[in-house]
C-alpha cells in the first residue's frame, strides 16, 4: 500500500475478488428466481396439427449419396407457448427448438432430429403463436427412409445466460406422435 502503483493494484485486485463474488451472486439469484417461479419444470407448450410432407431429394446436402435420392420430410404445424418466464436479468437469449424422436427398430438406433428452431431475444418475443407454420429444415434419416416411423414431437429450450452455466429443458404438453406417410410414388 505504500506506493501509488501498489494502491492502484490493491484496489484493482480487491475489486476483482469482490467481482467474482458478484458474479456468483448473479448466477445464484437467477437460479433462485427460476426455482421460485418453478418455470424450469413447468413451462408448457401445445404442439398440434402436424402434417408431414415427404419428398425425394438428390443433393448430397440433402442426404443423397452415390446418386441414390433420399427421402426428405418437412412438416406443417401449429405451436402455442409462452416462454417469457425463462427470461430474467441473467438471460441473454432463449433458443427454442422443435424436435422429433424416433426409434429405428430394424437397425436398433435412437434418433432425434430438429424440424424448427428460433432465437428469442427477449421476453416480449417469447409468446409464440404459430399456425400452419412450415418447418425450417428438410429432414432425412441416416438410414434409408423416415417414412412409416413414429415421430414423437417435443419443444425444447436452452437459456443462454449473460454469465454462468447454460440451462436446458423440455416444455410439457400432450405427447404428440405422428406417423410419417410414404412418399407419393413417382410417375
Amino acid at each position: 500500500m505504500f506506493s501509488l502503483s501498489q494502491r492502484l493494484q490493491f484496489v484493482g485486485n480487491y475489486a476483482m475478488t469482490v467481482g467474482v463474488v458478484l458474479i456468483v451472486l448473479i448466477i445464484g439469484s437467477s437460479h433462485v428466481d427460476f426455482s421460485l417461479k418453478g418455470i424450469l419444470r413447468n413451462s408448457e407448450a401445445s404442439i398440434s396439427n402436424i402434417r408431414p410432407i415427404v419428398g425425394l431429394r438428390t443433393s448430397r446436402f440433402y442426404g443423397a449419396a452415390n446418386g441414390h435420392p433420399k427421402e426428405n420430410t418437412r412438416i406443417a404445424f401449429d405451436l402455442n407457448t409462452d416462454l417469457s418466464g425463462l427470461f430474467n436479468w441473467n438471460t441473454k437469449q432463449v433458443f427454442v427448438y422443435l424436435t422429433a424422436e424416433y426409434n429405428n427398430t430394424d437397425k436398433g438406433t435412437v434418433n432425434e432430429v430438429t424440424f424448427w428452431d428460433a432465437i428469442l431475444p427477449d421476453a416480449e418475443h417469447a409468446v409464440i403463436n404459430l399456425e400452419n407454420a412450415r418447418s425450417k429444415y428438410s429432414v432425412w434419416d441416416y438410414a434409408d427412409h423416415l417414412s412409416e416411423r413414429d415421430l414423437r414431437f417435443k419443444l425444447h429450450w436452452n437459456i443462454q445466460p449473460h454469465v454462468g452455466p447454460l440451462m436446458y429443458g423440455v416444455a410439457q404438453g400432450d405427447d404428440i406422435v405422428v406417423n410419417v406417410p410414404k412418399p407419393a410414388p413417382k410417375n
Partner: protein
Amino acid sequence: MSKPVNVYSISQVSQVLNESLPGVLARLGYTETFELVDQKLLIGYSIALVAAVSFFIDKRFVHDDIVHYQQVLVGAYFVLSVIFWYFKKYVEKSVVYSGKTKNGNATIKISTAYEEGKPQYSVMFTDKDKKRVESKLEINTVFSAEGYLQTDLFLEWVKQQLATLDNKKQ
C-alpha cells in the same frame, strides 16, 4: 553501493533485513547452514520440473496418447504441492536463517515476519534447546530516511537479542 530501499514499504525493508542477517551473524561468529533452504529448493524445483515435463509432453504429443502420463503428473504435482505446503508451515516455519558457531556448540534459527502497514520487523530467535526470544524491531531505529540500512545498529540489536537468549538459558 547497494540500492536504497523505500522505507515506507515494510515488505522491501523486511527483505533487506532478511538478506543482511547472514552478514551480521557472520560478524557475531556464526556460519550459516543450508539444510532447510536446500530441502525447500529441492521440493520446489521438483514441482516446477513436474509442471515443465507435463507442459512439454503436452506440446510435443497428441493429447489422447499421453492422457495416462498426464494423470500421473497431475497427481504428482498435487502430492508435491501438499508436501511443499506442509514443509513451509510445519518444518520451515518462516525460518530465514539457520547457523551454528565455529566450534559447533551453539545453533541458532531465526524466523521473521512483518505485518502489512506496520513499521515493525518481528523476529524469533530459537537455539538448540528450543529456547526462544521473540522481539519486534522498530525499523526507523536501523534505517536512514534515504533508505540505507545502518548495519552497525542492526548488529547491536541482534547482539542484544542473542544475549537475552543466552541469559534465558541459565
